[in-house]
């Protein structure tokens, strides 16, 4: 059986890829993709800890499903915002959406 630490290393790697994507991509859609990666790395952690802990307590699995639901809703809202911004500003580059600065 694959040891737990492998899962954790895999999840951490996936989280770092996601974080890198969020910080480095200019396209807002790509940033959203990065966020999805980070969320899913967490899900892997949750599932792994459930499997290697007390299997009868379903908290980890349930929490992973809630994260799916939240992620789906978040992506729906996020994409809608991106479309709305594109319509007004004709761009989806995150650096160019800087109206909030002083």
């Amino acid at each position: 059986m694959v040891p737990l630490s492998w899962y954790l290393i895999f999840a951490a790697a996936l989280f770092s890829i996601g974080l890198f994507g969020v910080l480095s991509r200019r396209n807002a859609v790509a940033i959203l993709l990065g966020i999805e990666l980070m969320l899913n790395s967490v899900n892997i952690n949750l599932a792994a800890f459930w499997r290697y802990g007390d299997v009868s307590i379903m908290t980890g699995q349930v929490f992973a499903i809630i994260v799916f639901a939240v992620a789906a809703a978040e992506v729906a809202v996020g994409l809608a915002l991106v479309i709305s911004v594109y319509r007004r500003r004709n761009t989806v580059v995150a650096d160019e959406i800087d109206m909030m600065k002083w």
Partner: protein
Amino acid sequence: MTTTTLIWLIPLPPVLAFFLIVLFTNRSKWLSHTIAVGAALLSWLGSMIVFVRALGVEHLGEEPFESSINWLPTGDTWFRVGVLVDPLTAAVLFFVAWTVLMIFLYSVGYHNFGQPEGDHDHKGLSPHGATVDEHGHKHVVPSVEPMYSRFFAFIGLFAFGMYTLVVSDNLLTLFVGWEIMGLCSYLLIGFWYAKPSARDAAIKAFMTTRVGDVFMLLGIAYLYYATGTLSFRQIFTEQVLHTLATVPSGFLGFSAAGLIGLLLFIGTIGKSAQFPLHVWLPDAMEGPTPVSAMIHAATMVSAGVYAVIRMFPLISLDEKTMAIVAFIGAFTAIFAATIAVAQNDIKRVLAYSTISQLGFMIAALGMHAYIAAVFHLITHAFFKALLFLGSGSVIHGMEHGVLHTGNHHVDPQDMFNMGGLRKKMPITFWTFLIGGFALSGFPLVTAGFWSKDEIFADAFANGYIVIFITLALAAFLTAFYTMRQITLTFLGEPRTDEAEHAQETPWTMTTPLVILAVFAIGYGWVGIPEDFMGLHLQPNWFHEFVGGTLAEHPETIAFNWIPLLTSLVVALGGLYLGWLTYRNVNSAAEDRLQIPLLKNKYYFDEAYDFLFVKPATWFAEIFVYQWMDKGLIDGILHIFGPATQGLGSVIRNYFDVPVINRFFGDGSADVTYGVGARLRAIQTGRIQQYLMFALVIFIVIGAALYFFLRA
């Protein structure tokens, strides 16, 4: 109703009338005078009932009608006020009630009730006459007084003051009545306040009497301090009087009684216009004539004499005070009589004659001739009221003439503009003649003769020869100027068109004249000495009655021919000489007695102006206003202003501006601004940079926590 209750009620109707008129009825002339005259009538009725009941009491002097109530708490005891009617009060009440009622009635006619409103009358000026259209042609008739109701309100209050003064059983309420009259005197002398002369006269009267009043109040205070009471009955006990007479006052060797007496007497000098405070009374003739009659003949000046008579048991304790009283009285009598000789204004002659006659009474008191003083006070009130009302009637008649001719430059009060009025105004003439003869002391028939004769008899019998001669001279002058007045006014032929067209006055004015004339003759008969001219007549009723007031009844003076003959000679001689001198005088230029010194009243007004008014004005205007106020006080204030301003600018320049504004205010703002300016660089608006910051800080804090918490 018991007699004491009635006495309490006597002063009330006039004061009620005053408030009713002032508050409610002042728009209705008819209602106002009805209320006022009705109130006077009620008071008169009460006074008469009290008088008649007083006559029925055997020993009224020992057991007077009295009643008092607790009024003012003074420590453990009460100050009691109340009413007292002893023989003196009863006699005074009698003449006050009569004269007040007559004057109220007379005022109705004097102020032209029933006449039309004037064409151009103003409030505060005497009426100028109204034009009426009758049978197709116009003529001018007298117009009604514009402030008719106000006049009746004032004299109502005045009557209240007089009645209060008379029925008081203590000096304090007497003084209250005294001051109410002072106020009313001011209001009524200045009744035609739009005339500057009337205003000045009102202020002069008020200020001059105030001088006397202050001393009187001092006397009252001293008396209260010395005895602890102001009630007459309590003061006039043998024990209290003895104490007062023996305790020295520490002032020029006067006893306490002497000093109190002197202070109270100074009050009388002011009120009764004695020398040297006589100057206000002649000027008081600026008021309407009923006021002159009421205040300056019948009541107010009488109140001054009444107060000394009332305090006689106290004043008579000190011979020095009595000497001063006698001197002032006798001097005033002759002094005022000489001035009266040279006056041309019909009312001013009477004013000086009043001063002179009051001097007679004061002199009589100074000679211990108590009853003679009371007697002359009462007869004088009657005939002087008569004379004043008569002169008012003459002026009224003359004003009628002035309205007829339309020549308003003719002074209706100047006797040289009159003459021959006996045919035009017969009732006025005959009553004025009676009054004048009473004033002169025309023998046997008139009241003035009996009262003046009693003063002479007392002076002679008690050995006051100097006063006797002085008063005889004054009486001679009195007869002389009275006859001068009658001759110039009524006898001969009219000297002006106005006198030619003078007219008799209405019944409301002549009725009081007739009634007062009856008293001017008849009242003398109550005081005929028992052994007059060696005859054996009825006992002297007046002597018996009023003498009962004093603890020791004054002795009856034996008859002596010398004072009687003196009295006869001066009266008849003066009257004859007056007629002889003035029967052919037609103008002031022909009058050889118009000596400037007399004409100008010995320059007393000028002297007082120089001695008191000018210095007072200088003190107020220059010293207090210019020097004290503008120089000293304002000077100090002007230092404070710049000093405070300087201090303020120092604080501002060296503390407020640099410390508060620059350092704390601007400094904190600059720091905040500068910090903000530097920090805003990180506000890029780029979400990835923010996230980068968050990540870095998270790693740093996480590393720190890991590092520290591990241990």
